[in-house]
């Protein structure tokens, strides 16, 4: 085989392989709700497959000295078949039992195994055995491999993921691998009979791809979400996918729809304090925590429910929202209860990473910063929960400014807040922190609540029930927690220790185990 052809095949194979790796990370992250370490785990599985595959490729090409060229389409076809039809099998089996979802991990290894076997076969076919040029010729094929690996994430990440669903991307990648196999068969495989037989087989597989998509793969995300409880009627109301991830919306016939960001609960679409399925009263508590929060910063938009409550709080003059995932805006447009937020003149929505935006806009100051942060155990939660971030956010607060965020039940988050601010209190699973005490009198609180509006009428004047809720908010205790927190033995979350993601869960299990003796 000519070196140039080998470089091209190496590039295309690695393009498909790395693109699939991105899709696996996306899907497995969704299934595991973005648990910390998933990226590393999938990368480990892919590399295990590639490593074992490289040995397999070497041994196979050694055994089949005369027909090494036939190995290439064989490996590509096997990889693509397991990638596509293996996935379909898993999707059908998870309906039988949830545990079959674990087969996805094995599939990642097996597909990587066959695609990883291609590199040594290409080296055998294309590298000459002259001592002085072995290193250089190998490096060219390796470079082709690397170019494909670079182009894969760029094209898949920027183009395919922004425009196509993960299921269609998987179809494209599987089809591309089979097409490459077909081209190699017709260019390299000896014997017209074998060539014809192999071509018919590969073409049949290619033709089965759209059928597999229409019958099973088009409901891939639902099947992975509902697992064994999947049925024809269990479907998402909406699905949005962009390069920032997958958002799915679960319908709730008698209540608020639920947004899931990357598989994890984001929130319910609801601003009604009476309904409160999403704990929206925690948002209304702002009336008891700050006398006049004129300028508010919100990190993360999600369903927009919290933002809509704040946008209709007349004491707020401007609300700046920084959200990394633009797809939320498309979804919010579909909900009449929330969508006015998008045209509210005092609301500014910025698509950016919250942390980066803060760092670049150091002169922007706010009276109130609110973050309905995701689960503390999810990948990269450290970026918003670490002491470094809290200190940075604190610099964006005006005097007597308050920061208010979701601890998702983590004591470490509370402890870290106590290390960054002079006053710390809690509202349900939220922590509020400030360098000024939370000392609003009941009269001051009472004065604030008429300024909350919902559907253009005062939010708490609707009926007796809303008035009861308002009174609860006015009378809510804001305990002084800082001193007691600082005496506890919790993790101070830093960028360096990533405690919320990697340490606190494991260490608490270790301590429990130790204490059980």
């Amino acid at each position, binding site marked *: 085989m000519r070196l140039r052809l080998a470089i091209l095949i190496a590039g295309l194979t690695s393009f498909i392989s790395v693109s699939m790796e991105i899709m696996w990370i996306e899907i497995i992250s969704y299934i595991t709700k973005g648990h910390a370490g998933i990226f590393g785990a999938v990368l480990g599985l892919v590399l295990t497959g590639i490593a074992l595959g490289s040995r397999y490729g*070497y041994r196979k090409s050694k055994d089949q000295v005369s027909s090494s060229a036939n190995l290439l389409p064989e490996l590509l076809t096997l990889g693509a078949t397991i990638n596509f039809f293996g996935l379909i099998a898993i999707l059908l089996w998870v309906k039988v039992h949830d545990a079959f979802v674990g087969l996805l991990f094995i599939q990642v290894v097996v597909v990587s195994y066959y695609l990883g076997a291609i590199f040594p076969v290409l080296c055998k076919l294309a590298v000459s055995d002259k001592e002085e040029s072995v290193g250089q010729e190998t490096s060219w094929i390796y*470079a082709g491999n690397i170019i494909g690996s670079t182009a894969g*994430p760029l094209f898949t990440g920027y183009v395919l*993921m922004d425009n196509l669903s993960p299921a269609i991307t998987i179809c494209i990648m599987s089809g591309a691998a089979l097409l490459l196999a077909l081209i190699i068969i017709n260019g390299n495989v000896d014997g017209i009979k074998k060539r014809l037989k192999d071509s018919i087989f590969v073409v049949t597989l290619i033709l089965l791809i759209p059928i597999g998509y229409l019958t099973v793969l088009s409901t891939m995300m639902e099947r992975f979400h509902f697992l064994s409880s999947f049925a024809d009627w269990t479907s998402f109301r909406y699905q949005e996918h962009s390069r920032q991830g997958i958002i799915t919306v679960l319908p709730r016939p008698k209540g608020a729809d639920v947004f899931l960001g990357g598989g994890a609960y984001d929130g319910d679409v609801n601003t009604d304090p009476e309904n409160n399925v999403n704990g929206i009263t925690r948002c209304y508590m702002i009336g008891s925590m700050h006398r006049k929060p004129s300028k508010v910063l919100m990190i993360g938009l999600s369903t927009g429910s919290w933002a809509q409550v704040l946008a209709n709080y007349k004491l707020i003059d401007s609300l700046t929202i920084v959200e990394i995932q633009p797809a939320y805006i498309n979804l919010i447009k579909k909900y009449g209860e929330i969508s006015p937020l998008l045209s509210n003149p005092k609301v500014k929505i910025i698509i950016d990473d919250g*942390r980066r935006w803060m760092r*670049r806009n150091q002169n922007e100051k706010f009276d109130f910063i609110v973050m309905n942060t995701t689960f503390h155990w999810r990948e990269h939660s450290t*970026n918003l929960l670490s002491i470094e971030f809290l200190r940075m956010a604190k610099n964006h607060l005006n005097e007597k400014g308050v920061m208010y965020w979701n601890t998702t039940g983590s004591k470490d988050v509370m402890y870290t807040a106590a290390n960054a601010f002079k006053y710390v209190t809690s509202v349900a699973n939220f922590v509020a922190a400030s360098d000024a005490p939370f000392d609003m009198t009941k009269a001051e609180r009472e004065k604030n609540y008429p300024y909350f509006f919902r559907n253009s009428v005062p939010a708490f004047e609707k009926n007796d029930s809303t008035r009861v809720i308002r009174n609860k908010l006015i009378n809510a205790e804001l305990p002084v927690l800082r001193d007691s927190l600082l005496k506890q033995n919790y993790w101070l979350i830093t960028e360096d220790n990533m405690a919320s993601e990697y340490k606190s869960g494991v260490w608490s299990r270790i301590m429990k185990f130790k204490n059980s003796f």
Partner: protein
Amino acid sequence: MANASIISRPIIRLFFFSGFAAIIYQIVWQRMLYASFGTNIEAITIIVSVFMFGLGLGSLLGGHLSRKYNTSLIQLFVTIEIAIGVFGICSKFLISTVSKAFLNYHDAALPFIIFMLLCIPTMAMGATFPVLVAYIFKSNRSVEESVSKLYYINTMGSAVACFLTIGLLFVFLTLTQVLIFAACINFAVAAISIVYLKKRIG
């Protein structure tokens, strides 16, 4: 041929640890860059691209070097491993200094500078492969065997490192400590290679 294979076996085994350290750097740098750029796809793309670009370019450079220094390939490998380790130890300081210095420049400035900065160690990592292929080829005279063995052992090292990093290193150590751990592996690989070379010459 069997003897030749046995002679090069220690070097092949060492390549496991070279791949082991390399993936630790990738995972740690990736996390550090998320803190600089933000957790968005642009950051992920830059990180993946710089690794691939560096490894690819390094591979070509390594191929060239393997021809130029055909008689001192182990020395070349040792130098590269030490260079990777030194960069690894300094990397946290370098990334944070550069990130602070270029924060308020044009949007593309920081990613570009980070890209250039990380090109240095990733090129070094990429260069080790063809250098060792050329070395092992001298013993066994088989291209596919050299490539296959090295590729297998290096990738397996990386795979094991992935699981170990998320399952143990991140649980018991900080990012800084993990970087030092990876650098120590590079230095150990270099030291053992020198011992191996001395034994062979002796």
